[in-house]
């Protein structure tokens, strides 16, 4: 294929990638987006293979087969809950590939390159290498292979700074003496080290953000490779991923109420105070994600039962509750309310508040009328209720509330609980519902959580 035709196809691929990302902006088109982006990738790979003068097809075939088997197997086997770590691993592979390509090109060019090419190649390698080891660290943290708590030691920042400086110094050396493999290898090793050191001081809670940032880096690395190879496909796609990744990182930081600078800086050695107390436990870990996840689940429910409790009353969240119910109702979700007889702090507490918010009587169901329906319900939203949804009343004969009829919320596919903490309700007893696999906790004042959820669903 002529170089022009190849470039045209590359343009088409880039367009498909952009469309792919665009379609990912709505749940209804997201799958199509992923598909288009796959086509774009296929086209780019295919057309590259027709590059005039390309050799080594056996090697290429073997490489692709090995990669496909490993990648495909891992992707299919991974549990839904381990997705983020898997993404980290894949991303690390991308970074490694960029670094390797840069190294190969370095070897190809020998000593004959202008400084622009040298710089871009170096950047590609450094960023790629750092992404590789950084991603591996993120994976290890999320899998619990190394402590999820921030790992710190005295002089940490100094050491990181020193390594960065050393890398720079070696780069300058390389400029003087382009073909020097030793210096080159030194840079590679330092960049790999940098990836490790940059990620270990960060708490498990921040890992999703770091993965996202590393994803952006791997894009940057690709685009640097593109500059070096003067390949527009790599430039466009790389910068696309780089820019979108950095923005996504920022959006995630916003969701966690942290500044991007704070995370970026902490990513290079400073321990973030808040990381300390969110470091442990699965609930805390994914906090930044949860609001969105919860919104996704709610928006995609077919049937929803809302279980209000004293927390709804305490937060005076009845209007916000109705807003959420109404919005989902309009979206075609079947919304009902399950009112436990002792929810709240006075008989009829929930009724009084929901009537104030104008929730129609015919959406309210008493325990005995709705309890059998939980098993066939997609999502239960528990708003500040605790004792009235405590399964201990059924399974734990030693519980003080054993024998009290409770709402069988745990039988639903997913249970979402809005409350401020893990603390107990009126009866003062723990609630194992909160630890069940199908339960998602969304911490915070019920009213503000609800308002944020509605806002997130309306985008």
């Amino acid at each position, binding site marked *: 294929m002529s170089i022009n035709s190849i470039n045209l196809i590359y343009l088409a691929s880039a367009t498909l990638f952009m469309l792919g990302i665009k379609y990912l902006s709505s749940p209804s088109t997201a799958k199509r987006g992923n598909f288009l982006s796959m086509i774009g990738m296929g086209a780019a790979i295919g057309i590259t293979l027709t590059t005039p003068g390309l050799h080594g097809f056996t090697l290429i075939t073997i490489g692709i087969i090995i990669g496909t088997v490993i990648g495909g197997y891992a992707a299919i086997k991974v549990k839904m809950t381990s997705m983020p770590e898997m993404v980290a691993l894949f991303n690390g592979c991308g970074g490694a590939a960029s670094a390797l390509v840069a190294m190969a090109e370095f070897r190809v060019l020998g000593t004959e390159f202008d400084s622009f090419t040298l710089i871009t190649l170096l950047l590609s390698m450094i960023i790629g290498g750092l992404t590789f080891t950084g991603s591996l660290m993120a994976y290890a943290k999320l899998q619990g292979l190394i402590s999820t708590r921030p790992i710190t030691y005295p002089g940490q920042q100094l050491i990181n700074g020193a390594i960065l400086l050393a890398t720079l110094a070696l780069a300058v050396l390389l400029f003087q003496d382009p073909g020097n493999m030793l210096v080159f290898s030194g840079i590679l090793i330092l960049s790999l080290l940098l990836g490790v050191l940059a990620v270990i001081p960060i708490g498990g809670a921040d890992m999703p953000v770091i993965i996202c940032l590393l994803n952006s880096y791997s894009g940057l690395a690709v685009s640097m490779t593109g500059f070096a190879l003067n390949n527009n496909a790599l430039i466009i796609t790389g910068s696309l991923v780089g820019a979108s990744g950095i923005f996504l990182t920022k959006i995630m930081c916003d969701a966690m109420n942290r500044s991007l600078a704070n995370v970026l800086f902490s990513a290079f050695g400073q321990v973030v105070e808040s990381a300390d107390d969110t470091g442990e436990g699965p609930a805390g870990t994914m906090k930044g994600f949860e609001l969105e996840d919860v919104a996704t689940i709610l928006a995609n429910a077919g049937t929803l039962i809302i279980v209000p409790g004293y927390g709804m009353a305490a937060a005076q969240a009845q209007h916000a509750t109705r807003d959420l119910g109404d919005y989902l109702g309009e979206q075609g979700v079947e919304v009902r309310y399950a009112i436990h007889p002792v929810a709240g702090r006075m*008989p009829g507490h929930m009724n009084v508040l929901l*009537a104030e918010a104008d929730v129609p*009587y015919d959406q309210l169901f008493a325990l005995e009328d709705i309890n059998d329906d939980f098993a066939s319900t997609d999502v239960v939203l528990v708003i500040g209720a605790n004792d009235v949804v405590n399964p201990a009343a059924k399974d734990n004969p030693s519980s003080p509330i054993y024998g009290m009829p409770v709402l069988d919320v745990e039988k639903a596919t997913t249970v979402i609980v809005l409350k401020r903490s893990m603390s107990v309700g009126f009866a003062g007893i723990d609630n194992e519902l909160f630890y069940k696999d199908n339960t998602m906790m969304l911490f915070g004042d019920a009213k503000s959580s609800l308002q944020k959820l509605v806002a997130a669903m309306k985008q």
Partner: protein
Amino acid sequence: MKLAVLKEREEGENRVALIPDSIKRLSKKGFEILVETGAGNAAGYSDQEYEQCGATLVSSAQELTAQADCVVKVRPPSLQEAEALKNDSILIAIIQSTLRHELVSKLAEKQITSFGLDIIPRTSLAQSMDVLSSMSTISGYKAVLLAADTINRFFPMLMTAAGTIAPAKVLVLGAGVAGLMACATAKRLGGVVEAFDVRPEVKEQVKSVGARFIEVPISEDGSGSGGYAKEMSDEYKQKQAELISKHIAKSDVVIPTALIPGRKAPILISEEQVASMKPGSVIVDLAAEMGGNCALTQPGQTIIAHGVTIVGHSNLPSTMSFHASQMFSRNIEKFLLHLCDENGFKMNMEDEITRGSLVTKGGRVIHELTSKLMADSKI
């Protein structure tokens, strides 16, 4: 101009025609105000307050009326009270002229210029003087409270450890001012509220206070598009009656409010319909004073028939004497100010409101319906 506020002497009447607040403003306009001692007591306004805002207290009603150029009252004056009025003076009160022919004759005889607050034209402009509106507001509110207090059930729905309490079903017949207020109040308390009125345009108003309007589903056959409203067929009317019967039987509380100006109230609830209701249900008949919308209503009394409590209170506004007096007083104040021009009191007989509310003047009965009815009854 001397304005006198008489104490109400009718049994069970706690309101007062003017409260101190209004008197303060009227004084500024040049009125000299005399108040009978103790006039405001029952409504929660003390003599002291009256004095503080510039009124002169007069202990004898006789003395008061003898001086007054204008007397203001809540309820229609008794014949004695009318007799005591100064010849040629002005009277402003609810007069119920279409019913009280003897009183009207007496007023005419004494050359009294009498304004009936109950016949003020019901225009937007006159609404601030309209005691029917303000007192109906109170009646509608109070009717629901009375019903809720009388019935042996809850109004709101409650889901409790001691079972689920079904909300009370409230039916309001006639959705005028009182009816709408009743709907709104019952809704507030958590009742499931339905209303019916012969005027189809109030359907929207009923919905606007959160209640459901009872409508006869339009029969598909027959004339078809539009038009049925005018020539409401007997069949249609019958269907309507059946529908209402059904709703009455289902309701825990029925509040009929239908009045026809100047006439006896129409009967909307027959004895059979009362009997069809659950024992313990309540009817609060807001038309009691005009004979009642329920066939069994005893004006002024609360009775139990077929297990249903029928409240025939004939003066609900008086039970809320404090605010009722405040509103009444404001109405009279606005009416008096309407009778003034820039320079002070001066009745403009050309004015629609002034003329429309005139019962007698210069020895003649001005109000048309009244004079017609009086003529009829003499025959």
